């Protein structure tokens, strides 16, 4: 069963890819290097206070802007185990699924969860449990095809399976 649990770091609406990872750092694609600058232009303290397993919660249109996969890569490499938002920008959504960063759309949870709350997510059921506030929210489960992508651990593994490559 796939689960995530951690403390919440919370942001607002329209968190764009330029603040997730500013273009001045795009001259590398090394995840650890990118993680160092994650969220820098929005929240300089992020990288110092994030702990492995923490959950990011945000408002509408998370990840809007450029197609840079460096954005979900940086978030994942910084240790974030899951992003919950009211809505995601579509390219970010695709990229996160394709690289295996779990993300969930849940307007209720995104509005209710507070910075610092301890939250547990069950990806199989789509259930989000707010341990601090003792509440449970239900997110829409992924469609079948996306579940296949996630269980294959991303698009690349999925394609390898489809092409019958197992070297």
């Amino acid at each position: 069963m796939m689960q995530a649990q951690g403390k919440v770091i919370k942001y607002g609406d329209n968190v764009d890819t330029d603040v997730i990872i500013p273009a001045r750092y795009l001259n590398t694609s090394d995840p650890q290097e990118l993680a160092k600058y994650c969220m820098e232009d929005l929240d300089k303290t992020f990288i110092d206070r994030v702990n492995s397993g923490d959950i990011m919660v945000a408002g509408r249109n998370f990840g809007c802007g450029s197609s840079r996969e460096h954005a979900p890569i940086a978030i994942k490499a910084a240790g974030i185990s899951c992003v919950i938002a009211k809505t995601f920008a579509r390219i970010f959504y695709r990229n996160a699924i394709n690289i295996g960063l779990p993300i969930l759309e849940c307007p209720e949870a995104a509005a209710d969860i507070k910075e610092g709350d301890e939250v547990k997510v069950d990806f199989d059921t789509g259930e989000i449990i707010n341990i601090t506030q003792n509440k449970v929210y239900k997110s829409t489960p992924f469609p079948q095809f996306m579940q296949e992508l996630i269980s294959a651990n991303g698009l690349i593994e999925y394609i390898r399976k489809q092409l019958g490559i197992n070297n």
Partner: protein
Amino acid sequence: MGMTMTQKILAAHAGLDKVQAGELIKAKLDLVLGNDVTTPVAIKEFNKIGVDKVFDANKIAIVPDHFTPNKDIKSAEQCKYVREFVQEKEIVNYFEIGQMGIEHVLIPEKGLVVAGDVVIGADSHTCTYGALGAFSTGIGSTDMAAGMATGEAWFKVPEAIKFELKGSLKPWVSGKDIILHIIGMIGVDGALYQSMEFTGEGVSALSMDARFTITNMAIEAGAKNGIFEVDDKTIAYMKEHSQKPYTEYKADEDAVYTKTFEINLDDIKPTVAFPHLPDNTRTIDNVGEVKIDQVVIGSCTNGRMEDLRVAAKVLRGKKIHPYVRTIIFPGSQKVYLQAMEEGLFKDFVEAGAVVSTPTCGPCLGGHMGILAKGERAVATTNRNFVGRMGHPESEVYLASPAVAAASAVAGKIVSPEEVM
């Protein structure tokens, strides 16, 4: 229930007679695109798949445009990595410095996209090619890798919003003002996951350059793609630039749209998007006193001939304000050469502007015009996010080439009428 233009193109490429909004499909790709920032990540993923060859060496295009000519050692290493892959896989459509341009100006110019195509690009502004009546959308590097290996991509069939254009534009009003007006109206997530379909008798009054500017910014409304109905101008453009056969798709009479907006082009005024979101728009008469430090004219949004001609018309015989730096970056080598032959560079240089080689450069805060803390720029680009053009406390105001050029002269944001 009928299909939208986008749905028809997707159905044809999925080998289906019919598709419905929300359906997940696999579509065949006519072109897979990448740049110097996204392709290195895609190559790493491609190598993990374990196939030797790309699906079709003619149907991949790679354009090093973001940090080129390379701004530092790291970006040079990235380009070298891409170049080695291109040579090894014998990718035909690679455009080296000297032939390149900003990808979304270059690709249509090279005739690599025509009406009815399905295109994915590891760059969010890949939606630009919808101006030609193609389905074209931005994706990430992993999708690019998968596309290069298999020639296919997965899509959720989108719903659509219809924009019916009527009338014609007033002087000094352009495609940029139309799209800023629309984004201001529907918001940066107003078309999230959806297509923006542009139709109506007002379309015929718009040049191809104006249409490219409009579809370019569909992503700034959160859209999956923007698309124009094909008309005589589209066909003339394709005949001039491409040998590829095209297919024209019209929406069914009974196609379903989530919303329909009637846009009367006569009512549109020059529009400026204030920091830090493209939907934070004001018409030029409501801008107030905004002093500026820099003007940037160019990019994949407004780096085409029509854009440079308007800017030159405003700047001709005038002097740029002494406290304003003006940087003009044409979209491609072809645009560069034509602007030079038309004498536009003379107007720019005599007015006190610099002309850069085609590059993304300042648009994404890469190089060639980074802003310091507290500085303000008027730019004809497409994004004004926090830190987009430099320091997180700098500001970008998005506008048309006419407004940008006029503002360069005035030292503050003004309408072209004020300096002419």
